């Protein structure tokens, strides 16, 4: 418990947070990495997932790929890329994007699939073409699950971005590994606490977003599946991992 007190005392000193290597700068770096990695994997995986969900093609391959990706060890991926690119941000960014993509992909196709087929048929009967069905019906109605996928990906990326410092990049892993090398447990602990708080904060922001979404008229209506059933489908499709 002594160490916890020491870590907390350190966290409450101004020195820990200010300066070029301070926790504030590191936390912002950490968030920056997370947003960039999430942005890149969303740009790649989101359209792909929407396409798979809309056409129903390639679903088997997508399920296999996301399942296999869950077994991939983060640290292995990171060090593997780092051997080729050297130290810096390239390796962690590549590893982060690869790790985030399966969750985003699974969320996207599961979201589209969760839309009631009768609703989709009704939209077609109104004369909508494929694109209109996708953008005006399937994406808005599938949004809760699409967002769950992004939420999971964000959590995985925040956790893994800590390892970026292992191959020489910045982020909150920097003070953590510095503490590890110098046997400075309170610093390690302090940095760990900040990472945990950051993860919980980002998760809460996503949770809030999903809550707001659930209250939107189209998503709260009686045509949606009962809540419990929706959740179960979500969990089966959206893969979990760290």
């Amino acid at each position: 418990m002594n160490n916890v007190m020491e870590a907390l005392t350190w966290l409450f000193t101004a020195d820990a947070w200010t300066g070029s290597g301070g926790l504030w700068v590191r936390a912002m770096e950490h968030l920056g990495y997370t947003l960039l990695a999430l942005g890149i994997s969303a740009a790649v995986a989101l359209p792909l997932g929407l396409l798979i969900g809309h056409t129903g093609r390639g679903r088997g391959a997508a399920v296999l790929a996301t399942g296999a990706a869950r077994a991939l060890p983060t640290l292995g991926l990171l060090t593997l890329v780092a051997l080729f690119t050297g130290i810096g941000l390239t390796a962690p960014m590549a590893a982060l994007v690869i790790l985030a993509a399966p969750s985003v992909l699974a969320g996207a196709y599961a979201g589209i699939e969760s839309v009631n087929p009768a609703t989709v048929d009704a939209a077609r009967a109104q004369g909508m073409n494929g694109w209109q069905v996708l953008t005006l019906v399937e994406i808005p109605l599938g949004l809760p699950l699409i967002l769950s996928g992004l939420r999971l990906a964000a959590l995985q990326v925040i956790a893994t971005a800590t390892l970026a410092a292992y191959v020489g990049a910045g982020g909150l892993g920097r003070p953590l590994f510095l503490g590890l090398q110098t046997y400075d447990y309170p610093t390690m602990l302090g940095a760990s606490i900040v990472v945990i708080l950051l993860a919980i904060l980002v998760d809460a922001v996503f949770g809030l977003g999903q809550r707001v979404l659930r209250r939107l008229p189209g998503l709260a209506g009686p045509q949606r599946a009962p809540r419990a059933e929706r959740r179960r489908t979500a969990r089966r499709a959206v893969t979990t991992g760290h």
Partner: protein
Amino acid sequence: MEWILDNLGNIAELTVAHLALSLPAVVIAFVVSIPLAWVANRIRAIREPVLTSTGLLYAVPSLPLFILLPALIGTSVRDPLNVVIALSIFGLALMVRSAAEALDAVTDDVRTSATAIGFSGIGRFFTVELPLAGPALLAGVRVVCVSSISLVSVSAVLGVTSLGSLFTDGFARDILGSIIAGILMTVVLALICDLLLVLAGRLLMPWNVKSAGSRRRPRLRRSAEANA
């Protein structure tokens, strides 16, 4: 390639160490989650709070948790026990919800019928509810097992021996073979354990083989495709 062949013994040793860290965690998560889920289902008022708070544990990043735990429970950062406990917590975070949902999916009709033909509370749980929840429980354990096996490696940066040590050594000494061997072995290990779980499920729940196959088949959207 050559490096891998020269170090087969070492790789085998690390694989054993890896299993020694991950398998106990999976077992602990499974065994602890069942009573927790049962209580959560029994007392409706605490169901959502219990499920949400255990789920929140999953939001805690692994490496910081490995470091935070020693301060809370008095282990050392490089202690394998520390890693096992942290992994059990992650496993629990995933398992409690799926166990609660699995047990909850047993219908009241079944429960009432079991009571009617003379099952007592505990006997009913072990001989009726648990077997019926089996397939869903198995699905949960499979997720926990695969993610635990891949998560263990992270502890290598703290100096705990596992297949992850192949990554840290390989990176420090610039040996590509070491890293590739580590990734391959982790994935193979996860696949083998997953397969064993599926086989165990078949042996323990022979009645389930048919329904499991039909459930996994993707939903057909014939009407939508015909219109396209």
